[in-house]
């Protein structure tokens, strides 16, 4: 009885160690792989997050294709904004005949003002649904800017790397609203993203490892 417990504890510790090592390997900076195109997974949050995100995407070339948007299932407005944005893009580029974008829906991680504990539970539930979706899409790049929905997606992307399935580049852009303090998603993903972009010099000072390009939205 005692032996089995010790064995289980040892196995657990080993698994954790392996996980930590794999995570360290996945997050280590590496030279960019030259490529001509890459698939993009964009996490669209409610309202302002989506508007900011679409502004970020405005200037991206057609090499970023296909674009997979993930939207919270209760968020009608974001879907509408994305469709308008992609319509304008399609009008500007009539030679592209195949659908270049897809919209996927997942349950929201956390409603505004939701309590901490129930947030953890709904986030775990979101993970349960995010991972199959992320696994199916296997994007080259994940782009997000702070809504709760992005945490399970980014963790799923990391898992793809940890399990040796695919290295996914995770780029996080903190919202322009965040001048002096990071959002909760930002605090979590600061350590888990490949590039963490802030839009105000105060944040760059507080987080020297972040990337500061000025105001980009």
């Amino acid at each position: 009885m005692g032996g089995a417990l010790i064995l289980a504890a040892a196995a657990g510790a080993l698994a954790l160690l392996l996980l930590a090592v794999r995570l360290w390997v996945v997050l280590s900076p590496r030279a960019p792989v030259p490529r001509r195109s890459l698939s993009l997974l964009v996490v669209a949050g409610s309202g302002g997050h989506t508007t900011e995100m679409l502004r970020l995407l405005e200037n991206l070339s057609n090499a970023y294709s296909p674009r997979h948007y993930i939207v919270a299932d209760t968020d009608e407005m974001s879907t509408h904004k994305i469709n308008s944005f992609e319509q304008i893009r399609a009008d500007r580029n009539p030679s592209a005949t195949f659908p270049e974008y897809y919209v996927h829906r997942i349950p929201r991680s956390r409603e505004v003002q939701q309590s901490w504990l129930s947030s953890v539970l709904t986030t775990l539930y979101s993970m349960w649904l995010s991972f199959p979706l992320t696994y199916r899409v296997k994007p080259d790049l994940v782009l997000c800017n702070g809504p709760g929905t992005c945490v399970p997606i980014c963790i799923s992307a990391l898992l793809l790397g940890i399990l040796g399935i695919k290295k996914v580049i995770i780029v996080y852009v903190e919202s322009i609203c965040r001048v002096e303090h990071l959002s909760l998603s930002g605090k979590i993903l600061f350590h888990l993203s490949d590039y963490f972009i802030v839009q105000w010099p105060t944040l760059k000072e507080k987080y020297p490892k972040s990337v500061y390009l000025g105001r980009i939205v």
Partner: protein
Amino acid sequence: MKCVFVTVGTTSFDDLIACVSAHDSLQIIQSLGYKDSLKEDLQKADLVISHAGAGSCLETLEKRKPLIVVINERLMNNHQLELAKQLHKDGHLFYCTCSMLPGLLQSMDLSTLNCFPPGQPEKFSAFLDKVVGLQK
């Protein structure tokens, strides 16, 4: 163009806002000929007095309209205040509480406000192209 004005007075009535903003309500409202955006009103305004919402602030400043942001003192720890404060520091808008508003309106000099330069998403795409190894 007909305009629907939805107000909760000085109370909070989230259910009303939620049900009016719901997709089906909005569709019906639109089909009855009401407008779905305040862009036109913003365009016609010479001065905007707004809450501290980031979308409201940025949209107004981008349209180069003078802006006074009034802080809702009942919403403490509102993270959106950070942006309004910074924009005020940079001289792009005025900033006060409800009780200070009459005084500000009396004494303000709109010509002291600085122009709000547009954001530069091209810097983001240039950065991204570089780090993902995109070849031209």
